[in-house]
């Protein structure tokens, strides 16, 4: 049974290359090609079997797209991205990606990945796989805690005490701007939206 593969890739050259890869494999058929996540919402109406999604897209990111596509559970999302940092890997997998390829993968590797996906595997570039394994090496909470630098922890501790940014800044001899910057980093690292959530999450760490 031939599987339908849709692409979400903004880079025309890479898009073309992927199209070629899919076409070169008889087990798959190119279904649709999208240049942005917004366009790819179309997949909810026209769901493919496999969606190869880039993360870095104009407008919404590929990760958001993957999260949206979970409404159509038959779509298997394979990330093909240049990002190899933990944050993107984790986010992508958490939001429902079943495989993660780096863009430096060869034609063969991409082809194999598609095959594996059909077989029910979770294809990943070796580096991604090693990173994913490393997450299991240590407790998750610990890892999240460790995400924060010592300075960020200090900032968060003071914020948790109820201090204003200005007071925190004076306390640590920093500028208020810097503190805000730290807080933004903290939000990003802890995957939270505001101060209260950050503090709550920090408390349970």
């Amino acid at each position, binding site marked *: 049974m031939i599987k339908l593969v849709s692409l979400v890739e903004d*880079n*025309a*050259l*890479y*898009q*073309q*290359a*992927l199209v*070629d*890869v899919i076409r*070169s494999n008889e087990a798959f058929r190119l279904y649709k090609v999208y240049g942005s996540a917004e366009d790819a919402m179309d997949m909810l109406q026209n769901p493919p079997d496999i969606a190869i999604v880039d993360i*870095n897209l104009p407008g919404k990111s590929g990760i958001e797209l993957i999260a949206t596509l979970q409404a159509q559970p038959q779509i298997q999302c394979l990330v093909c991205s*240049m990002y190899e*940092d933990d*944050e993107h890997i984790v986010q992508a997998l958490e939001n429902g990606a079943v495989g993660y390829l780096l*863009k*430096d993968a*060869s*034609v063969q590797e*991409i082809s194999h990945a598609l095959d594996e996906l059909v077989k029910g595997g979770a294809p990943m570039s*070796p*580096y991604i796989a*090693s*990173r994913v394994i*490393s997450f299991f090496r*240590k407790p998750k909470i*610990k890892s999240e805690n*460790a995400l*924060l*630098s*010592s*300075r960020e922890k200090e900032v968060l501790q003071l914020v948790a005490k109820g201090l204003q940014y200005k007071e925190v800044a*004076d306390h640590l*001899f*920093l*500028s208020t*701007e*810097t503190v805000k*910057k730290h807080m933004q980093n903290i939000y990003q690292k802890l995957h939270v939206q505001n101060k209260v959530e950050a503090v709550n999450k920090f408390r349970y760490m």
Partner: protein
Amino acid sequence: MQPDLRIPLYFLFTVLFCLVTAAGTAQEREIESIPNQPSPEAYDLLKDSKGYIWVAHEFGISRYDGANFITLQNPRQNSISLTDMIEDKTGRIWCHNFSGQIFYIENLQLHLLEAYKHQDEQDFPRIAICGDELIATSKKGLFVYNLLTGKSTYHFIKYGASTLTQVGNKVVCFNNYDFYCYEAGKPLTKLTFGEYLPDHFAASLQNVCLKDTFYLIVNPRGKYYKLSLKQDRILNHGVIKTGAFINTISKQNEKIWVHTKEHSVTIDGKEQIKGMNLSDVLTDNLGNLWMSSLKKGLSVRYNTQPIKKISDSLSIDGQNIRRIHTEDSTLFLGTSSGMLYKLDLPGSLQYLSSIPKEAGAIERITPFDKNHLFVAASVGSYTYHYQTNTLKPLPVSITAKDIVIRDEKVYVATPFGIKFFPLAHLNDKNPPLAQRPLFEKTTRCRSLAFLNDSLIAVYNDGVFILHNNKIKPLFYQQNPIYATTVRMVGSKLLIGTYNQGLLIYEKGSFQKITDKEGLASNFIKDIKIISGSTWLVYTNRFQLLNPSLTGIENYTFPFPGGGINDFNTIGNQLYLSTSDGLYATQMTRPSSAISTKTYIDNITVNGNSLVATNTLNYFQNHLQFQVSTPYFSPNSKIVYQYRLTNTPNNEWQQGAPGQTAFNVVALEPGTYDFEIVATDENRKIISQPAIYHFEIMAPWYQHWAFNAFVILWLVGLIGGAVWFYFANRLRRQRQVYKKQLAIQAERQRISEEIHDDIGAGLLAMRLQTEITKNKLPEGEARQEMGKIHTAISELSHKMREVIWSLNTDNDRLENLLFYIRRQAVGLFENSPTSLKVVFPSHEIPDVNIHGEKRRHIYLAVKEALHNCLKHSQAHNCTLTMRIDGSALYISVADDGRGFAAPQGEHTGNGLSSMKKRMQQIEGVLEMETQERTVVQFMVPLTESV
């Protein structure tokens, strides 16, 4: 024989005569003129409310306190002589001169009363104080000055007024024609005098009134009228002729004295003073009679026991009484020419016997036994036998300084040590007298005493204890005692010293009494024990110790001039011999009541007189107090003692005799009381103290407000500096951080752009070329495409490295290690060498490694891996990463031939670049190239923001 008899008889008669005449002037002292007076011509006398004696005289007005005169003058005086002193209720003393000026004394200064117009006067005023008013005679009439308000008026009288007197609360004045009466608040009234006054032009009123009677004198005829006032009439109670020029009429207590040039006599005639030409007489609190004389100035007859000279004659021919010995009521007198007299009391002087001329003077008379007196001469010693009235020399010549008899043995202090002999041998013809000195100590011995069984001896070189044939010195405070005399009083040994006063030795310990305890001097010439009383003898005086031997009995004695040879007492009578005779006086204890007070006359601060303040500035800390005490004693002079309270040393300080100015210097700010009190020569306090309370203010720079200001200022300054420092540091930190952030952001931006645009493009190209290559048939084109693919792969690889090192998200140790592992695995993927990676087994610490450092580490490790891959030809390579403490260790080990293998091939091994990289990040590169090659990097991990 004959000359021997004549001399004593001569003495006998003269002495008897003297004794009879002395008894005639029983117990009254002679009038003495006060020495060192400003003037011998005294016009008036006043005892003020403080007790000072004031004398108005030819050269002004002087205050006498018993020791010193203070003479006051005013630069505006048109003549110096002053008279008619009156003290008002506030203590001001009023007087006038003989040229029409009226003065008053306030705070020891003579002020001119301006209100009295002396320019208008022809004659001098007479003044009186009646109630609160000073009334003075004037050419215009009566001048009335209110002492409280300072207002003055003239009450006009035709022909003016020349003399006046106070009668009760009225003043009667006389202008040589008529009498007028003034009473405060009432108009002047003219008085009628029923009789004709023949001498009215020569008559003058005396300002004296006793029981309504006042006196009008007429000179030079020397008569006076006794007058009294009855309403507007003056009554005459008689006229008395004195026959001499009347100086004044004055009042002493309730007695009226009439002073003429010849003599002064009380009106009742009971008392009279002859030949003094007095102007005034008064008595002080102690009963001393003070006189102002027109020829002898201030004179006094003290109300104390006089000292009587009972023998002039013994001093003739230069001989005088050297020694007085008393027994019951008999005096034994030894003279300088070696004669021994006896004076029975009451009775006559009797010559007893003489020692030979060559023996010199009689130096000492000591009771010996029942029948004998021991008489020590200048040379040799004698015994006097009462019954036979004979002086016999001792069988052996001994010059005795002192003797003591114990257990029938006589011990004699001689210039050649101590000699002794049994008493029983005294009258033996050839007695075996001890010729050898005791203990072979032949230095001069002065005095002896027995303390229990020990003989205490005063030698030239100290006091020694002789006991059981042993001699040892007696030390006071580890020093030998240089003494004159030792005596036993009860169980106490008294030692009179040359300069340490009196030492009292009892049970092994000493007590010391010096001039501080009232001794007249610290040089004690002799100690005399007379019928149980202990006397200390100095060069020109003596004192009686109290029975407890702790101080001086409160006696003062009239000492006649000249040194004292000796003295003795019989009962209450004291006998005293000087170089000019024998004196006797009654020992009377002065009153112990304190009847006088010490006053501070003047205070100078830093040399300037202090006026009416006791608050001083901090620099006004040198004060001098000029003090005085009215104290009139013929026998004793004042010594002041003073202290300053509120100072660390507030002990009483002793002034020098005669000192009246006392300085306190260099005082710290604070409140003080200067207290000074007068003592007599026995150091007994005789006055109430004068106390001056004053405060020296702290300087402005010690004021609390200033100090508080300084402290606040300093705190502010330090606070400001600290604030400035931290603010500055914060600013710099912000700047640095902003810079870092900016760099980070820039790096991030570059990295993202490369990543997103160039990176994505390159990878797409790479994939595209691979696909193209695969499509091409086997051949050259396919090979070329393969090359392009490889080149693009490498390029993308490099680019990823750049992105990786730029991306700040990777600035963590964990990322670095993972990245190294990944790159290493990639590097060895298609090589014959197999790679083993040893990754840290435990958690990788959360440490930031900045882009630069991270890149250096990565590139250095890569270089090492490259070397291994290219040059070692090894089969196995091990990459070990571990974290130990605060350092990261990365080692690359292989089993190949190592670096050094082929010569000349060393150019490409990148060793220097690895070293350089390590240096830049303060890391260490270690290398081992024995059997296997090991390259180890050590990088210190420092956590940073």
